[in-house]
């Protein structure tokens, strides 16, 4: 393959987040750290006093922690799946996006994977999962698949990072040893490029089925029980679609935030947002289709338990949240992303925040109403989250932002070598590729 020399000097803007630390940065880090510390304090308090400090009760024994668990793991799909699929399809507009996507996945998987432990009544016994684990339980499948996905996506983040780490090694004085160690001896020789591209190609293919399996298995936590509203065959694909949907929205929010914070307007241009917005719109339609299938089937069949659960969500106690979810996930993206005049960066930001809210609501509407409607005539109540759960949610979001900022301080959040590769080689490669799609020279002259 044609190689090129990545240079540390031709794109100084991409190193700005590493080189310059503004007061705004310190203030942001300070505020985020304070939120995280408060969340840690609330968690320790929960461990000491027991899960009674949450809003959960009989019969709603799963609340915010499980909702956020599904939500955060769902966001992880953006990253790696989008980056891998865009790489596989050789979409040229992926270049400034892939790094951020991969980082989101790694961070959000770690945070999401932490949530079931936050939810445990006896967290000190978590080793029991490894000592006595039963692989028949969907929770064990979850532990396996999430940790496998975390391993795979960390490697998938690290491999394309290596040439950029080498650039940092060659230009930095402080932390030079850190970049030197992480660069694993990268010098950009043709043989090394061959090894790296082959490895990235393998990982981008491996990561896709692993990612799909992760959210399918999370859906199985619910689908494998006999509860109405959960025991549905559509859950596997439904959750994966929802995950990719919320993941793209999270990616957008991150892109917009960092684009303005580090002034990367030259690299993250409107066209990138518009291309990705088409994907978000497509996922919105897909999500709406799945939701429609799920609710119509249950409603039409009219099986009493199923119907009770559906009506509770659509016309009952949860109706305001349900219709807010539909508005955020369907109507708002349809308008803001479907019409060109609204498909601007502010429009995309509003749509993405709406999707994140809507998808979080979807997780809530899946978990809690079923529990609030037990099969037996059990005296039930409305689940109201407590300060503990809200602060842990805030802490998780703050931890995500904090980790992302930490990454941005150490590594470029836009892949420098991929941008430069695009500049150097993409035009020629694209011309060759398009030429291969077009009919051959002799095709029109067969009957000469």
């Amino acid at each position: 393959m044609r190689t090129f020399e990545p240079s540390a000097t031709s794109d100084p803007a991409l190193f700005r987040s590493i080189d310059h630390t503004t007061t705004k940065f310190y203030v942001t880090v300070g505020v985020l750290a304070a939120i995280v510390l408060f969340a840690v304090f609330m968690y320790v308090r929960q461990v000491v006093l027991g899960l009674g400090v949450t809003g959960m009760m009989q019969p709603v024994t799963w609340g915010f922690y499980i909702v956020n668990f599904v939500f955060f793991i769902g966001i992880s799909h953006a990253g790696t799946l989008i980056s891998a699929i865009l790489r596989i399809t050789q979409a040229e507009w992926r270049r400034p996006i892939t790094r951020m996507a991969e980082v989101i996945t790694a961070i959000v998987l770690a945070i999401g994977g932490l949530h079931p432990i936050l939810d445990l009544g006896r967290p000190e016994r978590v080793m029991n999962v490894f000592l006595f684990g039963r692989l028949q339980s969907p929770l064990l499948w979850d532990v396996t698949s999430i940790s496998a996905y975390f391993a795979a996506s960390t490697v998938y983040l690290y491999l394309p990072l290596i040439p950029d780490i080498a650039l940092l090694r060659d230009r930095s004085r402080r932390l030079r040893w850190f970049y030197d160690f992480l660069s694993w001896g990268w010098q950009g020789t043709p043989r090394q490029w061959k090894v790296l591209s082959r490895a990235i190609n393998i990982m981008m293919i491996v990561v896709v089925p692993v990612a799909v399996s992760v959210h399918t298995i999370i859906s199985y936590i619910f689908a494998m029980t006999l509860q109405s509203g959960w025991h549905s065959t559509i859950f596997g694909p439904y959750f994966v679609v929802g995950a990719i949907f919320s993941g793209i929205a999270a990616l957008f929010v991150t892109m917009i935030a960092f684009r303005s914070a580090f002034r990367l307007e030259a690299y993250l241009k409107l066209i990138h947002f518009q291309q990705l917005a088409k994907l978000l719109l497509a996922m919105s339609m897909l999500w709406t289709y799945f939701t429609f299938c799920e609710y119509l089937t249950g409603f039409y069949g009219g099986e009493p338990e199923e119907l009770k659960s559906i009506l509770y969500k659509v016309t009952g106690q949860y109706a305001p949240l349900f219709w807010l979810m539909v508005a955020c996930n369907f109507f708002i993206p349809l308008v803001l992303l479907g019409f060109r005049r609204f498909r601007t960066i502010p429009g995309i930001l509003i749509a993405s925040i709406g999707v994140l809210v809507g998808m979080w609501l979807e997780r809530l509407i899946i978990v809690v109403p079923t529990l609030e409607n037990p099969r037996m005539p059990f005296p039930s109540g409305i689940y109201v989250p407590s300060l503990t759960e809200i602060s842990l949610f805030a802490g998780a979001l703050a931890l995500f932002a904090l980790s992302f900022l930490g990454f941005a301080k150490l590594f470029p959040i836009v892949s420098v070598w991929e941008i430069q590769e695009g500049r150097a080689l993409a035009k020629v490669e694209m011309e060759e590729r398009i030429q291969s799609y077009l009919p051959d020279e002799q095709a029109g002259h067969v009957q000469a």
Partner: protein
Amino acid sequence: MSKPDVHGPWYRRGIDLLRLMSIVLMWLFLGGVITWMVNVVRVSHSLGDALTVSVGVSVVAVAVYTLVAAVLTYVFFGLQRGRGGPEK
């Protein structure tokens, strides 16, 4: 903005050691995953509790982890071997 490279004689060795430790850590992690899976299969066998599922899931899990470990190992040694000259 490259600096003159004045490092002590142990610098290069230290970096090489760190790198080796990172790949060894990864193999240890793989070993840990395999141990865990084997233990869980043994537990399910002794309890007589869905052995086929346990074996099935463990095989897939260990396969994925081994593949990822293999890719990382390939990259590690491939980069070492593909070096143009000694590192600074």
